[in-house]
């Protein structure tokens, strides 16, 4: 790996020894993978807009060089959408937790999937609300044959991949932060995808999720087979469902099917672009 490049990603960031994740937190793997991917793609920090969710995961925005924004819980995708519409030259990466994205943020998730802005969403999925100390998130219960669903209080988990597929996402991938190289690969492909790219990264919470541990994942992850046709939405649904039936977790690109896009330009924002515009065409209609 290009260590000089990686160093770049540590400027304008919280110093390493002050990173406040629990030792062993899965988010460390995502941070490493991001640095690798951005270095590989030769992205410059000033071109980046990292939009953090609220959660342990969302803090990654400050652990990495690049412009960053952090607003409300569940809002990352919508801020990113607006920024990208305003300036298509920005590289917008939304970095959020499973709770942030799929609980309170599902209102944005479903719609931004289908809006398909050219940006990345990486969810650090740990099955819990880490930052609020371990309550069930919508992805809680992965692999646990419990009595979920028998009461309204404990619904079955959301499978983020199926939800993304139903919501017309054009790029749906899955990774595991214990496999940094593969996660980095997914990030590279997501950034390269011309449209909305969703990566569901399993990033274990070592403090509050003692069930879905690194070992637990290692026993279950399997790369998406080579013969899978990622451009086939139905095949993608089948693949996810088949893995689930076998108690396995697919890693890789599950679905990729870019849509033809109209080219967009940065919106006018400088004085010379804005001043003294001619309102006559509008006024004409009211005369």
């Amino acid at each position, binding site marked *: 790996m290009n260590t000089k490049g990686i160093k770049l990603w540590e400027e*304008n960031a*919280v110093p390493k020894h002050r990173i406040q994740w629990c030792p062993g937190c899965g988010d460390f793997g995502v941070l490493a993978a991001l640095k690798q991917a951005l270095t590989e793609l030769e992205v*410059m*920090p*000033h*071109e*980046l*807009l990292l*939009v*953090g969710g609220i959660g342990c995961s969302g*803090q990654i*925005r*400050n652990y990495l*060089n*690049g*412009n*960053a*924004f*952090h*607003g*409300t819980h569940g*809002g990352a995708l*919508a*801020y*990113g*959408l*607006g*920024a*990208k*519409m*305003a*300036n298509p*030259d*920005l590289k917008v990466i939304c970095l959020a937790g499973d709770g942030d994205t799929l609980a309170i943020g599902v*209102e*944005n998730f479903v*719609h931004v999937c289908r809006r398909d802005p050219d940006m990345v969403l990486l969810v650090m999925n740990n099955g819990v609300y880490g930052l609020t100390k371990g309550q069930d998130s919508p992805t809680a219960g992965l692999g646990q044959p419990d009595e979920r669903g028998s009461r309204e209080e404990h619904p079955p988990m959301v499978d983020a991949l199926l939800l993304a597929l139903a919501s017309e996402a054009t790029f749906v991938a899955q990774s595991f932060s214990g496999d940094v190289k593969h996660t980095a690969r997914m990030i590279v492909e997501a950034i390269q995808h011309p449209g909305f790219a969703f990566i569901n990264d399993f990033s274990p919470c070592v403090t509050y999720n003692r069930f879905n541990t690194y070992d637990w994942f290692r026993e279950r992850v399997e790369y998406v087979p080579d013969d899978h046709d990622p451009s086939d939405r139905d095949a993608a649904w089948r693949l996810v469902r088949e893995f689930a039936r076998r108690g396995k977790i697919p890693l890789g690109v599950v679905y990729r099917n870019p849509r033809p896009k109209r080219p967009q*330009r940065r*919106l*006018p*924002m*400088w*004085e010379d*672009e*804005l*001043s*003294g*515009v*001619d*309102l006559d*065409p*509008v*006024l004409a209609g*009211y*005369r």
Partner: protein
Amino acid sequence: MGPEGEAVRVNHVKLLVGGVQLRDGVTTVTDILGKIFTRAGLFAVAMEKGYASTIYGAHQFDPMLVTEEPPVSYGDAEVDVLVALDYDSNPDAPEQPNRDTVLRHGGKLRDGGILVYDSSTGEIPTGALEARGIQVFPIPARRIAQAELKREIVKNVVMTGALFRLLQFDSDETYLRQLLEERFLRKGREVVELNLQAARRGRQEVERVLEANGYELPVRLEPRPGRHRAVYISGNECLGLGAIAGGVRFYAGYPITPASSILEFMEQWLPRYGGRALQGQNERESIRAALGAALAGVRSMVGSSGPGISLKVEEFGVSGATETPVIVVDAQRAGPSTGMPTRPEQGDLNLVIGGGHGDFPRIVLAPGTVEECYTLMLEACELSDKYQCPVFFLTDLNLSEGKKTVLEEVFRRPQVVRHGIVREEVRSKPYRRFEITPSGISPRSVPGTPGVVFKASGAEHDEFGFVSIDPRKRAAMMEKRMRKLDTYLREDWKPPQVFGSVRGNPVLVGWGNTRPVLEEARLLLQRRGVPVALVHFTHVFPLHRRKLEALFADAGPVVVVEQNFSGQFADLLQRELRIATRRVNKYNGVPLYPTEVAEAVLQALRREGAVVRIGGDSQPVPVEVGRNEHEGD
């Protein structure tokens, strides 16, 4: 007054057009009228919209005042001419063949006025009206359209023709023909001719009645062409224009009455100026996307009404804390909750000054007129950019959707200034996005600027934007943000407009869209020998305590007139100035009228601490509920 002996009134007439919503095309008619009168050099004001939030079937009405010179306000509820487009019987009173519009608004017709109605399904007993000297014109417009012209749709053109005849206007069809040609020529000349034919039939029917009854028409409209350039336009359209002129290039909204038309305007026009308009999938997507666009450097705006503003509250804090500017239009309607979506109110002031947890800077502006929807919006654009905080822009249903004749000279094009944006790295010192400054304003930058990187967070942070709970940093950052309001008060706040002399006189106080009515109420009071002053606010929050204390120092009793229940602005005045306020409040969903305001003010002047409720009772009166007059939401 009957018409006898009275001179014909020229170029001053108040109309009311009513009918069944959607079916009868009430606004189609008034839109044509307003446009034509404007072209004729007259002033048309249609700001008292009466409609239901259900799409079809409720009663709808649209009053319009037409005058020679710009009127102070839309005047009182009394009308000279009542136009009833509905042709069938009132479903609540099937026993009588009367029409809804006549039933509801007949009482507003002045003695000696004119009633014209569609008599296609029979004539109405109008003896009581005629006894008041009212001239009644039954026109079988729908029957003519269906039977003679074979196109039901032209029934309103028949009525328009009739109305023009009654107003002794456009007898050579110049204005009507031009408008019809603009609209229908592409469909073929026959369509234009058919419509003109319809209008002529309306005229003929009026002639017939005139002759039969020997009526002499009491009003006349005379064109004054070429005096000025003017448009017939709504408040929402004006503020949309203002936003475009002021540099807004991103707008997001979620449909809601009465803000939807801003979204429509922006969807239509922003792309032409290089901008984009987004219909959010919910209220929060809208404002979040706007904040994202603002972060990226674009002037951004959202618009909604009460329910949507309530839903956005959390994001106002994000704007305040991350110092990402956004203009928030709140086109107020009557609340609480879904309330009365198509009725006006000024009930959101507390929401926009208090909504949000914790303290953060914000500015609230409220235009007083359709014209100010443009001019004040230019200011809003500059203020949001300069102070990097939410700027609220409060209109209400009637100001938003009501239309009037506006002189084009209002639409001056400003020089847009981007305030203190760092466009490249200054190598000597690291860039501090949230630098502690005496003004509270820190150097902004936009992502993508080479060599400059910043972190912005709704969590408390240091000058670089990194999260911190260090008590000293917190205190300094909180103070810095709030200091922006001091700077604003010093450099940009505008004092209220003062009409008359405050000294020793009773003072009427208002804010936002009530100004025209209050101005007129003041004139009425003066005419009655009450020397009342009017103090009217557009820069509603924060208030400049010192300057206002000076203003009110030698004032007589202060009467705050608001269209809400509790007197939200009066509360704010008390809180800031600690002056005693008397209050006149109206909250029944009906617009304010000058005469009732004048009456209420007189009542309020009678005793300290008075609260006068127009259209309301302070007693518990059971209301009659047997007849379900259902309206939608």
